[in-house]
């Protein structure tokens, strides 16, 4: 009987034939969703419930001198107002460092910061009440530009000596030597911007008073974190807070941050007033007050030798944290340690700065710090290749990470690395060579181009941050299986993948299995982020299912008249390896186990082994494994308008075992859409820290006509030794190289390079125009051949 988790995982890693793994099983939640039965937070609406509506700061940086709520009190007897003073526990919700209140107390640090909640029995009345809360501010000087904020005397957090929240760095080799050996150098600055998650369901939570505390149903990504923060705000124990996820209408990282805050807001009302309470953000509240992808400035220099090898990189990354640190320390760290791209670089020096400004705070968003830096890397790879006179795809192949390579942080890649193969296959499939030559020759108002970009992404949590998988599986007397995991279903389809994992290991039909996920009633499985839900989340399920089989083996052996080691599970039957024609039904075995008083529940736990990281040098173990992605993009640019139409994308994934290809395609297609929006149209318009476009008329996200044809992804299944069946993680991948694949294709089409996102038609038009003017000027002056 094998009990060593490493050996059990290895057994499944080496398995070649599967029943359900690798199949495009239909989602377990699809039926409820097409019938409109799926219950999201706001669908828990009921009479007698209280509704909280947000009062937001009208100042970017100010002291709160007085909050006058008399207007609300006159509105209706049933109305009340909650401010920081009403918080019974600790008014502190910062994710990384304790710098952020749930409701601003003495000072506001960004326009839109939550100050109060107006509570009423009618949601419209609560909303009306927010207009009647009068706040007297003493305005302070604000700082909005992160580069200015570095040296500014204006302190976003007055108690801190500087607006720099955190510095990161990584260095290896000797960049002076590396650059001096380089035959070509490229140096530029790249700018990226806020991106709004724009999930169709805004933030929300509903809380119910419970006998010893509260029960909260939220739009969340990590029930145990929501529990911890809610308990802290209420000043009660975590055992007094139960958190369950509702069906979540899109999350993409944003509800990892916002989920706990909304849970705490709703719980505060329910706990204090003893009635069920719901808080939901309007679209405007959401776009003004919820965290977004970190704006970044990346100064990047790289060098390569004539033979096409990268010799050195130097990068300075400035992340605009907004008013609070939130996830910034982690997004910046990730950006820093990914700053080489998926390439071998002998000499590197990367520095990162996270800087406070008086703007809406940054947070988790698919790609998590990586997209801005990969935009810089992949732009430079193309520019280096051009200077070397090489094909940009071939140049990448010469430098690409392979098995046995060492990363920027000197982490040895011991498992197979599939990105080289993915790149070669994408080249073939997209007809790369022909198109690169053909499109060059084109002329006219509409020009086509084709570009490539790679991406890599460390899976799960970084460096020494504890990382584990945990799951509990129970089998009832009818043979039905319930698997408990803290991993949430946020639309990505992970719970369907989890069903496939349990089905494969227990050898039973998928319809016998139910995932009880996203609840504090399940073991803490860590957050559903960092592309870890399917992979890391699945490990515990394999181990728990294996334990259950072991519990039943003796009974099965007796019924089958064979030894325990000969017992096999499959096709809903239990049989003997010696004589497979002899079998017993799953249900009969379960019944027999109940009769024999065998307890049929088991927990599967696995602590991921992690190496050491030297913080001084920024060298060492960064992530448990890496997923890789290639996108080839074909575009058409209208030179008269600067409008870019993305025609087609060829994605190629090296993300380990693909558990459910249909769900993976969904992740790839959806992430490309978000990457395309980030690259071409999505832009939060800010003036003095005020969001000017908190709606979908002025903040554009892709619609059907913006989307390209997306080819079926190429899969190179480079297995991760601890992943379930070798799975790594997919959710974030395709977003990461999409902006640079598009911008490299735009360059191929127009000869104009975009270094600031989004490449809106207006911006691209002027870039093309000024590039054309400088070419004409050069020709006239005879400086160009």
């Amino acid at each position, binding site marked *: 009987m094998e009990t060593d988790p490493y050996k059990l995982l290895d057994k499944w890693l080496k398995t070649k034939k599967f029943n359900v793994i690798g199949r495009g099983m239909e989602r377990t939640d699809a039926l409820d969703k097409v019938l409109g039965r799926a219950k999201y937070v706001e669908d828990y609406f009921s009479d007698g419930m209280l509704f909280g509506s947000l009062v937001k700061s009208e100042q970017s940086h100010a002291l709160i001198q007085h909050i006058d709520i008399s207007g609300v009190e006159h509105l209706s007897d049933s109305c009340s107002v909650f401010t920081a003073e009403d918080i019974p526990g600790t008014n502190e919700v910062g994710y990384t460092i304790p710098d952020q209140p749930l409701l601003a107390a003495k000072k506001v640090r960004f326009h839109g910061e939550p100050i109060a909640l107006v509570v009423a029995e009618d949601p419209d009345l609560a909303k009306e009440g927010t207009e009647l809360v009068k706040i007297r501010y003493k305005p302070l000087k604000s700082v909005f530009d992160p580069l200015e904020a570095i040296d500014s005397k204006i302190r976003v957090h007055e108690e801190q000596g500087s607006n720099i929240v955190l510095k990161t760095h990584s260095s290896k080799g000797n960049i002076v030597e590396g650059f001096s050996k380089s035959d070509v150098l490229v140096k530029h600055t790249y700018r990226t911007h806020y991106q709004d*998650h724009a999930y*169709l369901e805004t933030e929300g939570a509903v809380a119910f008073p419970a006998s010893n505390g509260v029960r909260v149903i939220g739009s969340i990504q990590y029930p145990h974190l929501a529990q911890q923060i809610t308990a802290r705000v209420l000043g009660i124990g975590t055992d007094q807070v139960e958190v369950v996820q509702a069906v979540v209408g899109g999350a993409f990282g944003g509800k990892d941050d916002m989920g706990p805050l909304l849970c705490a807001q709703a719980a505060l009302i329910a706990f204090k007033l003893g009635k069920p309470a719901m808080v939901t953000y309007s679209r405007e509240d959401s776009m003004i007050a919820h965290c977004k992808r970190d704006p970044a400035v990346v100064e990047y220099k790289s060098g390569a030798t004539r033979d096409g090898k990268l010799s050195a990189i130097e990068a300075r990354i400035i992340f605009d944290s907004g008013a609070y640190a939130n996830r910034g320390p982690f997004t910046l760290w990730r950006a820093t340690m990914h700053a080489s791209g998926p390439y071998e670089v002998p000499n590197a020096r990367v520095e990162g700065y996270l800087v406070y400004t008086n703007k809406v705070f940054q947070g988790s968003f698919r790609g998590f710090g990586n997209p801005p830096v990969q935009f810089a890397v992949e732009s430079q790879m193309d520019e280096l290749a051009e200077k070397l006179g090489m094909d940009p795809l071939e140049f990448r192949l010469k430098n690409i990470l392979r098995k046995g390579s060492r990363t920027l942080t000197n982490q040895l890649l011991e498992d197979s690395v599939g990105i080289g193969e993915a790149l070669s296959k994408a080249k073939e499939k997209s007809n790369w060579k022909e198109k690169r030559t053909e499109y060059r020759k084109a002329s006219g108002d509409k020009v086509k181009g084709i570009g490539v970009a790679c991406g890599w992404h460390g899976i799960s949590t970084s460096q020494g941050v504890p990382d584990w998988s945990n799951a509990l599986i129970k089998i009832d007397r009818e043979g039905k299986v319930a698997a408990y995991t803290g991993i949430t279903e946020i639309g990505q389809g992970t719970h369907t993948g989890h069903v496939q994992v349990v089905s494969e290991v227990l050898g039973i039909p998928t319809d016998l299995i139910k995932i009880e996920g996203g609840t504090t009633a399940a073991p803490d499985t860590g957050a559903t982020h960092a592309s870890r839900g399917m992979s890391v989340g699945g490990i515990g399920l394999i181990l728990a299912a294996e334990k259950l089989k072991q519990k039943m083996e003796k009974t099965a052996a007796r019924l089958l008249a064979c030894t325990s080691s000969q017992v096999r599970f499959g096709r809903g039957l239990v049989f003997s390896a010696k004589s497979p024609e002899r079998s017993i039904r799953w249900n009969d075995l379960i019944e027999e186990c109940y009769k024999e008083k065998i307890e049929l529940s088991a927990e599967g736990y696995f602590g991921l082994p992690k190496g050491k990281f030297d913080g001084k040098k920024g060298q060492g173990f960064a992530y448990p494994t890496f997923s890789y992605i290639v996108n080839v993009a074909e575009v058409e640019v209208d030179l008269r308008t600067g409008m870019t139409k993305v025609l087609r994308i060829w994605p190629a994934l090296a993300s380990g075992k693909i558990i459910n290809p249909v769900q993976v395609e969904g992740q790839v297609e*959806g992430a490309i859409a978000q990457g395309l929006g980030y690259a071409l149209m999505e832009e939060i318009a800010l003036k003095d820290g005020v969001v000017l476009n908190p*709606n979908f008329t002025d903040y554009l996200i*892709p619609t059907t006509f913006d989307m390209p044809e997306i080819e079926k992804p190429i899969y190179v299944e480079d297995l991760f030794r601890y992943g379930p069946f070798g799975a790594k993680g997919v959710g974030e991948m395709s977003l990461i190289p999409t902006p640079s694949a598009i911008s490299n294709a735009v360059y191929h089409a127009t000869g104009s390079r975009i270094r600031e996102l989004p490449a809106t038609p207006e911006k691209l038009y002027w870039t093309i125009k000024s590039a054309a003017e400088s070419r004409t000027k050069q020709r006239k002056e005879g400086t160009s051949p």
Partner: protein
Amino acid sequence: MKEGKVLVRFRLNGKPVETFTKPNDTLLNLLRRNLGITSVKRGCEVGECGACTVLLDGNPVVSCLILAPTVEGKEITTIEGISKEGELHPLQQAFIKAGAVQCGFCTPGMILTAKALLDKNPNPSLREIKEAIQGNLCRCTGYTKIIQAIQLASKEIKSSCISD
């Protein structure tokens, strides 16, 4: 009659409804709050996202922009009204089969818009499909599988018409 409220009578999914509404309330709120039809989703409340789409006399409308009293005498269809005798509409089946559902928040509105299209034009071109659903935002799928699902349903409907 409740104070300050007006009576509105219409057909909801084929059944007559009589209810009181605030005169300035939206059809979205009437359906969700008064009648418990929570499949109609609130996404933006200003007609930008399409999540609250219902069929008004067979045409897709965003219910957040319709004042509740104006549906007097009309026929409203929500996702609850499109499956007959417990059998899923071909679009519902196709959305499941094609993997067109992710978070599901846009799904009811998307399916209703697609139904209105297929009812009028059982054999739409790719462009016609894109045009029909361009007002329904989806942040999860990139629309690829949604379009495939509508194409699949269109084929299903045609072949079932032939066999009828």
